[in-house]
């Protein structure tokens, strides 16, 4: 049994920081000395999982490094050197974010990322600073920037006006496109209690405790010491085209159900695409209408046993792809995921102003997704593959289908058909569109507090 020392784990691993504002800062170290000085200054401010955030202390700070960033600190040389480290860590983490594995093609291709201001490989360190007020965030921004500039560290800002990428707590948890988020997360066996198959093994989210030689990686000293109590963090910056989505919903729902009141028809189509009504109510439990009571709409105690043919919740709806629960995988995926379905912890925030209607105002808005896992390939990439190609399921007929909301329509071989059932009838909706666009991806390590300290002072 593993006993995790919470004060050694960065807080984001254990919980979402649902604060009104979060500043995302990205930096490139000029050299090891500056990297270490910078970490020495900021690591003492890192919020660990032992901090009680109920009283809303601020700011909350978490720090993540890329493979290049870790190398620059000297932590790799300090252990066994770059060559063995390259063998010990997987290429999913070491290499620049793999557009093929995530199906980031077309407008979502890396050439268009970060508003053209930098490339993912430039980023050595990312800081996430959660604040209760704009005043605190402004103060923190100034302090972080002053420290970086004093040490000659270059800030990488993905905007032309110098504004840092700032996420906001979605009002009532409702994201652009109008869906409530923040309902389902893996229930983790943090205590590592035996005999709890209902909970997800903590080794899927906390590195350094894997005994299985195949995963997660690294699983050998001296590298386990560097990653223990940390997690991989994939940052995915996603633009959401609200005007396009609203237009699609209105036009297509009207064509599907001409005799239904327009609002009702739009809500029904939106629900079928997500697998939950926009207020959160799960379709499996309430296929006919969203429920007004939070005790109903926040429900997550369901599986798909009661909907084996996807009559209520379509097989390719977002939540049925992103967490297949008890749906059966086809044979190859069964052997690829012997310990169950890929799961990730989601710690994102929304950004940009709310837009209603179908006239685009040209402003940027969307989601800054932070996805935590211990195996980027078989957890995060697997979900991205499934979102873009529904060929994992034992029952789904359309092997080329996609998540109707978030699939990238430039994926080779994809089908633009969304098959679903509603009110006892089968429908095939054609002409799915790109409703989102990837604006940047980073593969990072969210190290333990002690590993951050070691990076700040190698050899200490």
């Amino acid at each position, binding site marked *: 049994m593993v006993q995790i020392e919470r004060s050694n784990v960065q807080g984001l691993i254990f919980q979402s920081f649902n604060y009104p504002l979060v500043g995302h800062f990205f930096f490139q170290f000029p050299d090891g000395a500056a990297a270490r000085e910078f970490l020495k200054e900021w690591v003492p401010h890192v919020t660990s999982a032992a901090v009680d955030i109920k009283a809303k202390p601020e700011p909350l700070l978490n720090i993540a490094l890329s493979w290049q960033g870790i190398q620059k600190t000297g932590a790799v040389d300090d252990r066994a050197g770059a060559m063995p480290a390259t*063998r010990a860590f*997987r*290429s*999913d983490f070491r290499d620049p974010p*793999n*557009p*093929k*594995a995530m199906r980031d*093609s077309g407008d979502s*291709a890396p050439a268009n990322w970060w508003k053209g201001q930098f490339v993912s490989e430039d980023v050595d360190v990312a800081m996430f600073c959660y604040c209760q007020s704009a005043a605190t965030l402004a103060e923190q921004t100034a302090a972080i920037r002053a420290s970086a500039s004093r040490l000659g560290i270059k800030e990488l800002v993905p905007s032309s006006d110098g504004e840092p990428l700032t996420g906001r707590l979605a009002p009532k948890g409702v994201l652009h496109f109008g869906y409530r988020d923040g309902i389902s997360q893996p229930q983790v066996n943090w205590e590592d209690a035996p005999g709890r198959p209902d909970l997800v093994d903590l080794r899927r989210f906390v590195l350094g405790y894997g005994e299985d030689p*195949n*995963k997660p*990686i690294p699983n050998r000293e001296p590298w386990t010491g560097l990653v223990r109590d940390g997690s991989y963090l994939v940052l995915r910056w996603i633009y959401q085209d609200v005007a396009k989505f609203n237009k699609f919903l209105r036009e297509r729902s009207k064509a599907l159900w001409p005799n239904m009141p327009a609002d009702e028809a739009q809500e029904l189509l939106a629900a079928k695409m997500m697998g939950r009504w926009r207020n959160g109510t799960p379709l499996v439990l309430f296929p006919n209408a969203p429920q007004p009571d939070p005790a109903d709409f926040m429900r997550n105690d369901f599986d798909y046993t009661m909907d084996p043919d996807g009559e209520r919740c379509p097989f390719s709806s977002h939540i049925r792809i992103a967490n297949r629960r008890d749906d059966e995988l*086809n*044979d*190859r995926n069964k*052997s*690829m995921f012997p310990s169950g379905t890929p799961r990730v912890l989601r710690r994102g925030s929304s950004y940009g102003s709310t837009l209603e209607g179908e006239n685009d105002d040209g402003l940027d808005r969307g989601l800054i997704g932070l996805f935590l896992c211990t195996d980027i*390939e*078989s957890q995060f*990439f*697997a979900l991205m*593959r499934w979102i873009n*190609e529904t*060929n994992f399921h034992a029952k789904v*007929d359309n*092997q*080329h289908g996609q998540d109707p909301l978030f699939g990238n329509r430039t994926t*080779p*071989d994809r089908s633009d058909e969304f098959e679903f059932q509603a009110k006892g009838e089968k429908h095939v909706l054609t002409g799915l569109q790109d409703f989102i666009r990837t604006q940047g991806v980073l593969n990072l390590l969210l190290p333990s507090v002690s590993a951050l300290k070691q990076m700040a002072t190698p050899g200490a």
Partner: protein
Amino acid sequence: MHALNLTIPIKQDAATKEKLAKIAADFPTVYQPKIDAALRKSKLVHFARVVNVHGLFLQVITEYDGDHKAYTKFFQDELPDVFAALFSLADGAPSFGDLSADDFYELSKHMNLRSLGNSTIGETDDKGNPEGYLFSAYERRTVEDILKKL
């Protein structure tokens, strides 16, 4: 659909040549049934064969669907002794047992020769460059699509 042209350079010493002869002799009874079972289960591979190129190279040639990287691990897990035997012939390859999923992928990527020409359906390699040309009379149909129609 993608092509695998895995081309393993065979070490040119007497012991390796003997090993190769043994693998060839055992192929129908030992390796073939295992390969058959794994490929059938995968529903990913259209066609597969192993060719001894005049004792200089061993080629594993397949046409398969989907993601090379993701499925490498599937085959590594399903066919460990087959790949161990094949890689034991290779010049300079580490022993199979020591390979992580990642090493195995890197090695197979390194030994996979690109076909001439360019993919006509927009398939790209890891770096976003077009894959080589591959003709298919079934266009984009996958193994699963085709099996369903039979």
